[in-house]
């Protein structure tokens, strides 16, 4: 429906209102006259309708008062076909352009009145349906009325009701009272179940299933009664552990402690892994030692470190033996295990009755630790067991040492595959101990020869104190023993009566003797006479001699090079030598502990470039070797050989 657009302008003077109200105001009078004129004009145009003459113009009281000029003002009124109620400022978001765009063409149709009709076209679907229905009704109605049957038969099309002879009969049957029968059952028990089926849940389930099957197999093979008892016991224990909340967390708490420590010592850990002293390039040959962690245990404050040993299987675990070197200050002792991952607290703590003098960790079974004590006992600890007591102790057995055990060393398993180790003690005997079932069986190997200065009748009484022991890496029947008098004896396990060789090494106590891990003939010794000497076993006099300013308490070969070794002295200094680089001087002489602290032990880590040193305060300090100290030669033993040839030449000359 469109309204034809008629845009016409209508001039109108605002005044004329057809009201019979006359006002006497002058201005209005003018208007009145004007109105009259209009009226007359209108009258004229209207062809003189007489009844219109009587009308006079009356102004309404609220009419606007306007001046003549304003009256004559032409106001344009436009007749538009647009809907005043239609929105004029509709905007729609255009996805194509990504902004809001105004819509210009808005529907202008305004519906004033709407009436729905009820006429349906004959040909349409609904029309046809209705017509069909109508025909049906007509047919159906015909059957029920008997009077009209004839009529109906005749006139099927027309349905006429006979108004005169018309009978309608209706009957109402009795309605049965409706009944509702319903049955209510108890709802089946329902439970909500939800689960996730991830890959790992499936895996877990299969693992459990496997375990269950294995257990059931055992059940069939084993004894029924015992298994049931065990199962009931297990159930008991499980129930208890559920109540006892905390104990299950042992492993987790350990991990957390290590994490916390890692955070605290973060910079040290970073140094340990990554720091390489770049200034070594400018230092020439010299190197430095970078202090890393310090390990201390407050209950071990009064004790001094007497032994250190790294674990071969777990390269961050090391054992510390604590006791006392002084004869007069003997108390208890301790065996502690530290890991580099947790510098604040030891992993394992064992208290011993007397001071620990030496210890050794088995090369293959890294949970077996042999310990030699000041009172002459040897003990073997098993780290896997949770107890504080050693699994073997020589306290009760005969043949135990009568004096402090100075060194213990594990040996290869014997023919019956029993573990065994050898100890040397201050009573001058070398004894081999074998772990047979639940006891230690001792076998005497050899007795250290007595020196000549002791008169014959006292030879049996005053023993030669053996202070150090080392076995050859490749030919493990060959060993070296250092004594208090400064002599070093070379022996063999196969000869139990005599030593093969004797070296006059030092003037005072020999504190350490060690075979070179690469060269088969070379060993090093150090003593209280301020000397460190390097020997070739075929020669009676040392090949190299170094004098350090104070008593040397320990010396160790580096595991990565045949020419590098380090020594510690009682003035708290660590001396590192590399014969390949400098045959006369140390590459590094560094004081690593506070004043008046003596260093007693040093060990190189088998894998990492760090060393640990033990002092007499019970502290263990770890130090990183700078690159200059870690130079590896190309072929290990060759290098040392070359040096030996050269120095031999010099010494012979």
């Amino acid at each position, binding site marked *: 429906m469109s309204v034809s657009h008629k845009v016409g302008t209508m001039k109108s003077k605002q005044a004329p209102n057809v009201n019979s109200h006359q006002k006497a105001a002058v201005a209005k009078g003018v208007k009145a006259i004007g109105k009259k004129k209009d009226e007359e004009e209108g009258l004229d145009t209207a062809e003189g309708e007489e009844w219109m003459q009587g009308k006079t113009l009356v102004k309404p009281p609220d009419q606007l008062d306007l001046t003549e000029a304003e009256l004559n003002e032409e106001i344009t009124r436009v007749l538009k076909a647009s809907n005043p109620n239609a929105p004029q400022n509709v905007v729609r978001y255009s996805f194509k352009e990504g902004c809001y765009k105004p819509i210009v063409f808005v529907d202008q149709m305004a519906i004033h009145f709407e009436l729905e009709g009820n006429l349906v076209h004959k040909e349409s679907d609904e029309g046809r349906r209705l017509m069909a229905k109508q025909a049906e009704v007509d047919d159906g109605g015909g059957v029920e009325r008997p009077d009209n049957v004839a009529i109906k038969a005749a006139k099927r099309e027309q349905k006429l009701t006979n108004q005169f002879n018309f009978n309608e009969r209706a009957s109402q049957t009795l309605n049965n009272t409706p009944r509702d029968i319903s049955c209510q059952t108890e709802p089946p028990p329902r439970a909500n179940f939800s689960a996730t089926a991830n890959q*790992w849940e499936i895996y877990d389930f299969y693992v459990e299933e496997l375990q269950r099957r294995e257990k059931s197999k055992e059940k069939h093979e084993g004894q029924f009664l015992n298994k049931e008892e065990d199962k009931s016991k297990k159930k008991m224990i499980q129930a208890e552990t559920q109540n006892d909340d905390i104990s299950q*967390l042992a492993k987790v*708490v*350990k991990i*957390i402690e290590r*994490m*916390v420590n890692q*955070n*605290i010592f973060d910079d040290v850990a970073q140094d340990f892994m990554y720091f390489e002293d770049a200034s070594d390039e400018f230092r020439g040959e010299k190197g430095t030692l970078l202090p890393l962690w310090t390990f201390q245990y407050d209950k071990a404050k009064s004790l001094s470190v007497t032994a250190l040993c790294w674990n071969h299987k777990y390269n961050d675990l090391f054992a510390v033996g604590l006791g006392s070197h002084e004869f007069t200050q003997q108390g208890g002792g301790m065996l502690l295990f530290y890991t580099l991952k947790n510098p604040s607290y030891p992993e394992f703590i064992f208290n011993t009755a007397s001071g620990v003098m030496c210890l050794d960790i088995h090369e293959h079974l890294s949970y077996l630790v042999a310990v030699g004590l000041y009172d002459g006992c040897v003990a073997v600890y098993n780290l896997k067991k949770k107890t504080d007591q050693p699994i073997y102790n020589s306290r009760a057995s005969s043949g135990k040492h009568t004096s402090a055990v100075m060194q213990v060393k594990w040996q290869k398993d014997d023919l019956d595959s029993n573990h065994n180790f050898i100890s040397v003690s201050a009573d001058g005997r070398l004894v081999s101990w074998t772990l047979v079932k639940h006891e230690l069986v001792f076998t005497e190997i050899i007795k250290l020869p007595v020196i000549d200065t002791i008169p014959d009748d006292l030879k049996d009484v005053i023993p030669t104190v053996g202070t150090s022991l080392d076995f050859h890496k490749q030919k493990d029947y060959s060993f070296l023993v250092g004594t208090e008098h400064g002599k070093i004896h070379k022996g063999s396990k196969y000869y139990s009566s005599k030593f093969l060789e004797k070296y006059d090494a030092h003037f005072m106590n020999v504190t350490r003797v060690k075979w070179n891990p690469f060269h088969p003939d070379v060993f090093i010794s150090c003593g209280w006479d301020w000397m460190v000497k390097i020997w070739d076993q075929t020669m009676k006099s040392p090949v190299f001699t170094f004098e350090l300013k104070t008593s040397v308490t320990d010396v160790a070969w580096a595991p990565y090079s045949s020419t590098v070794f380090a020594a510690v002295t009682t003035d708290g200094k660590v001396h590192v030598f590399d014969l390949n680089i400098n045959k006369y001087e140390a590459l590094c002489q560094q004081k690593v502990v506070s004043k008046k602290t003596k260093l007693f032990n040093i060990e190189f880590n088998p894998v990492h470039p760090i060393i640990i040193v033990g002092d007499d305060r019970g502290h263990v300090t770890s130090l990183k070797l700078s690159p200059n100290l870690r130079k590896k030669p190309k072929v290990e033993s060759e290098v040392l050989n070359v040096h030996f040839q050269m120095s031999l030449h010099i010494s012979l000359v």
Partner: protein
Amino acid sequence: MLDIECAGAEVEETIKRIQSQKGVQGIIIVNAEGIPIKSTLDNSSTVQYAGNVHQLLMKARGMVRDIDPQNDLTFLRVRSKKNEIMIAPDKDYFLIVIQNPTE
């Protein structure tokens, strides 16, 4: 039996040691259902930590095991500007330690 008792005492001692370490602000032990059973922080913080960490832990563990079912989560560290939250899960429990590492 003795072993279990000793383990409990050992764990208590270790927890005390951790608490006394430098920068540690709090320790919370939460059981498998996400209910804190032991804490050194106040109740509202504990509940907040326990609830949030529980969800994160389940998600992290699910992720690790989804990729390789034979693998399992050992620990989780969440380092933020102010502190570090360390979470170590166990089969039935998990442990949360809040530490300020730069202190």
